[in-house]
């Protein structure tokens, strides 16, 4: 049974009189110990989806089931209790830490909030243990956020997330603000923690290389919808949706001599308030047919867990004449 089940999630923001469908009919599940990546560009709705999964936003429509309970049916107190097993790590480590509190105390805070009944001494021991687990010393726990590097700050964010023994962590672009060499080590830490503690991750990212290296399954989002999802290796070796292919062709290889590929999309991602009501890619797609703009495209199952929302899955993309 899956640990988290998002079904038929729709979330509408009202923005200066307009309705913005930030998330528009998304279903996604996460198994225990699994990493599901949600990849998309800015405005794709991936962060909103993450907040819905955390219960920080109640969706306009749809149900979030976590560990056998429906999040929307929990009382405030029950939701608070559930948060011990449902944690989050944010993109900007510094912004998510209180600058006036020693980082060790920040890491200890969930233990107080969740009323674990630990004594001061026990909490201190637990913090030291978790800090060590994420590659920091108890000594570094006495510092303030600004005294730590970006990578160390993000390790604090991770320590705070794992101290309550969560089953699922939503990682919202956890490595995007880090330099490449630091990024690689933080990803390694996340993999190690998952192996040892069996935590599931929802890994939100815009970076294909990062997603490829960390996730078991991937969901590609565009304008509030999942256009393609499936096992990471399957989706990346056998991409079916034109948007997935475009995202991949836009990623530059660091191997000298690899040829640059044409990016087969026209223009830019529209403002979500002006999203097409039909196929989300209509207007930008190189293989669009008249029927693509008739109505929403439902995801179709191609293989075990590989779903694509496109009616032309087997059509190769041809280079548009410029």
């Amino acid at each position, binding site marked *: 049974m899956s640990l988290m089940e998002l079904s038929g999630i729709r979330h509408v923001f009202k923005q200066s009189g307009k309705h913005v469908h930030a998330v528009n009919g998304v279903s996604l599940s996460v198994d225990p110990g699994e990493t599901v990546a949600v990849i998309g*560009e800015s405005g794709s709705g991936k962060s909103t989806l993450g907040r819905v999964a955390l219960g920080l936003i109640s969706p306009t429509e749809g149900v979030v089931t976590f560990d056998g309970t429906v999040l929307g049916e929990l009382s405030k107190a029950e939701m608070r209790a559930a948060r011990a097993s449902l944690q989050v790590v944010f993109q900007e480590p510094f912004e998510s830490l209180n600058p006036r509190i020693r980082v060790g105390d920040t890491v200890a805070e969930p233990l107080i909030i969740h009323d674990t009944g630990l004594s001061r001494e026990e909490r201190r021991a637990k913090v030291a243990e978790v800090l060590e687990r994420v590659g920091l010393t108890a000594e570094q726990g006495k510092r303030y956020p600004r005294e730590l590097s970006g990578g160390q700050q993000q390790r604090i964010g991770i320590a705070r997330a794992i101290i309550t023994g969560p089953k699922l962590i939503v990682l919202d672009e956890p490595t995007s603000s880090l330099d490449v060499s630091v990024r690689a080590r933080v990803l390694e830490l996340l993999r190690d923690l998952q192996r040892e503690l069996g935590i599931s991750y929802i890994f939100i990212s815009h970076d294909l290389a990062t997603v490829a*290296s960390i996730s078991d399954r991937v969901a590609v989002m565009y304008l509030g919808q999942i256009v393609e999802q499936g096992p990471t290796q399957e989706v990346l070796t056998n*991409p079916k949706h034109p948007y997935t292919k*475009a995202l991949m*062709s836009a990623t530059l290889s660091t191997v000298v001599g690899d040829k*640059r590929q044409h990016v087969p999309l026209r223009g*830019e991602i529209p403002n979500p308030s002006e999203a097409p009501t039909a196929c989300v890619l209509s207007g930008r797609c190189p293989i669009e047919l008249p029927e693509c703009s008739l109505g929403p495209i439902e995801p179709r199952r191609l293989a075990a867990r590989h779903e694509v929302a496109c009616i032309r899955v087997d059509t190769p993309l041809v*280079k548009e004449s410029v």
Partner: protein
Amino acid sequence: MLSVSGLTTEFHTRVKTTRAIEDIGFEVPAGVAVGLVGETGSGKSVTVRSIMGLLPTQGRVVGGRAEFEGADLLAASGKELRSLRGRRIGFVAQNPFGALNPILSIEKQFANVVRAHRKISRGDLRDLAMQRLESVQVRGAERVLRGYAHELSGGMAQRVVIALAMVHEPSLVIADEPTTALDVTVQRQILDLIDAQIAGGDRSLLLVTHDLGVVAQYCQQVVVMQSGHVVESGAVADIFTAPQHPYTQQLLAAIPAVPWASEAVQKEVPIV
């Protein structure tokens, strides 16, 4: 084309002096794209700002030369620098909305850039601006000219900035993280555009970036910086296949490989 040697810049505050970059040296030959790479704090932006004479007031160049078209940019007077910047050296910044003036129409900004260096009639200016915008594939150039920066998407705004940078046909283009603020599919459009603007001529490019993929695919030479020093420089083909300095090796090793990705898409998406 551009030859930098011994460039050292310090930042002075009341309490202390910090040396941000020290003894920086590299060349940007004619017709070549050079990538200047490094992580946050490596000094790549300070290097570019020193060359352009655009350091904040606390910053001071304390040594070195930056020779460009027979002049030392570091010793040039304000007036000399102003006559080179925009005319002989085009600059593309990271954030297009910071580079464009929010309260002037795009046409007025073209006028300011062009008239800073030569006289031009209103009609000629409009023709020139239209032609430049079309060359960077801005659709509806006429409407864009009448409009303001906030009406443009990030990608369109960066196209306008590139058009402005190219308006005097500069021989050197300096681009400081020109695509970092943009989405990936748009990033490639902008890089292809910059690439097209310098291709096949004597125009040179100094491209500041933290993205090694950008350097591998768009530059012929690379300068790697770490904590204010150049640690390695040379041909991209050599350095990416056999990096000599441990830091360069570490940087290249840190990038997760996506071996299957490019192969899969190459089957159907044509190569440019």
